[in-house]
Structure formats: C-alpha cells, structure tokens
C-alpha cells in the first residue's frame, strides 16, 4: 500500500506553521505554479518545508497539487510556501492576473485546447 493515507491527520497545522495562519505575503492562488531552486541547502528546514522543496525540485506544480501530494491543507501549504519564497528555496511563476474580466485571448486559447481534445 502506498502512503496515500499515511500522513492524514498527523500534521497539526498550528505546529507546522509555527502558529501562523496566514502566509507572510498573500501571493498564492490555488493555481499559482511553484518550483524549487536547485542547490539551496535543505539543512535547517522543518520536515514539512523540506518535503515541499524536495517535491518541487523535480518540476513545477500548482499550489493545490503541492497540498494534495503532501496531504497538507491548502491554508498550511500557502504559509509554508510563503516562507520558502522568502528564504529563496521556492520560485513562483506569475499566476493569472486577477482582471475584472478574463481576456478574450486567454479564453480563446482555453477553448481551442478543449476542442482539440474532441
């Protein structure tokens, strides 16, 4: 059996995030894409922060995927990712800017991509 349920319930959010409930900077959306900087020392990182960096060293993922793979609540994941951005371990790829309306070019690309699957 893989570790799919292994960690569930074991991580107490307030411990993992040192009691903070909000990220140091509120820059993360569920689909903000993150990846890890190679060659950053992992020594001194808490186990959860280290797991995030190790996961993100191999490629880019959304914030939601990081939370899903590591069985962490999204709220906790955002706090930890914020710390790791501050410490230079994690890079974010700009999420879609929150415009009043999504632009038509972007919607057109989504539509083309979906139609191509039919």
């Amino acid at each position, binding site marked *: 059996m893989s570790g799919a349920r292994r960690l569930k319930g074991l991580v107490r959010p307030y411990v993992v995030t040192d009691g903070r409930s909000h990220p140091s900077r509120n820059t993360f959306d569920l*689909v903000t894409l993150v990846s890890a900087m190679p060659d950053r020392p992992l020594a001194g990182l808490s186990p959860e922060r280290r797991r995030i960096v190790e996961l993100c060293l191999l490629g880019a993922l959304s914030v939601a995927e990081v939370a899903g793979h590591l069985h962490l609540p999204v709220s906790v994941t955002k706090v930890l990712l914020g710390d790791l951005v501050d410490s230079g371990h994690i890079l974010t790829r700009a999420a879609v800017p929150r415009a009043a309306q999504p632009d038509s070019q972007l919607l057109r690309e989504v539509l083309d991509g979906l139609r191509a699957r039919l």
Partner: protein
Amino acid sequence: MASGPVSDIYLAPSVRTAVKLLVVGHFAVGKTTFVGTLSEIPPLRTEERMTQAGALVDDLAGVHGKDTTTVALDFGRLTLSKSLVLYLFGAPGQQRFTPLWRDMAYGALGALVLTDTRRLEQSFAVMDLLEEHGLPYAVAVNRFDGAPEFAEEELREALDLLPDTPLVSCDARDTGSATRALVTLVEYLSARVEDPTELEPA
C-alpha cells in the same frame, strides 16, 4: 493509478499560464467522476477543517470534534497547449463564504454546475453561491438511470435559468461528453467577454 514514473506528476517545463474552472453541485451529482474522467493526472484531494460557522481551523486549540467539519476539494489537470494548463476543481456548495470557496472562486474563469433531474432543487444553493461570487456558469444535467426526462424548457424553468445560461446534458463518466460540456461553458465565457452588452454591470 497512483504509480508510474515520478516525472508524470509534473507540468511540462514550457507551461507558463494556469487557469481554473470549477465543477460544482450537490452531493453525489458526479463532481468527482467528472474531474477524474478529464484529468491527465490521478485526481488529487485536499481537505480543510472548518468550524460549523465556516471559519477555517488554523489553530486547533479548543476547536475539536463535532464543532468542526472537513471540506474536501477534488481537483485534476488538463494541459491544453505547450504553455497553458487548466485545473478543474470539484467542490460541494454547502459552505458559504468560507475561505475555501474564496480560494476556489478567486481568479476562476467560471463554473460548470452539475445537476440531477431527480433533485433539481438541490442545485439552487450552489447557483446562488456562484452568483454571489460573481462567477458565470453553465449547467450540465447528468443522466442518471431512472432519472426523469424533461424538455429543455421545463428544465430551464425549474432551475430558473437566465435565457443565455447554457444548459447541456452530459455523462460525467464519458470523456467526450464531459469535454463537450466544458466547451459549451468556455464558449459562453468567451461570448460574454467578446460581447460586453451581455455582461451584467459590475
């Protein structure tokens, strides 16, 4: 399938932009099925603990047991082009004004509301929620065995849909059918943006 080369879980290095659509509806309407049918990765799930009042449980001190409830979010991913990826988030509609809903709705392009003709009235809450968040939506009727059939006009009336809200029928278990439902939704989203007279005042 949870196994396979580890690199399967990652985005292509060329991906630059991520967008999201919501797949919403009441319990057992087919949200998890829909997301799983379309996702290129094994669908993922995250859970948040909330108090009954809807506050996120950040600090467990003094907040235990029956006062808290777990809200699960299923999601999946479709890479649409070299540079663009679409995430689908499936979530129930009971939790109003919660941080989880704010997170989901923030920046979302729109939503697909799944409904079941055996209990249409159970879709009202989630449609209200979308309207309160200002999220445009289309409605997809999942055809369950033994569910009553209605003419489109009857369904529109029962669901109290605006004339331009798309209504399609869909089998959440079928890739083509689920994809067509999303195409209908995004066509509608495009039309709204390209023809601003269709937009409601902000």
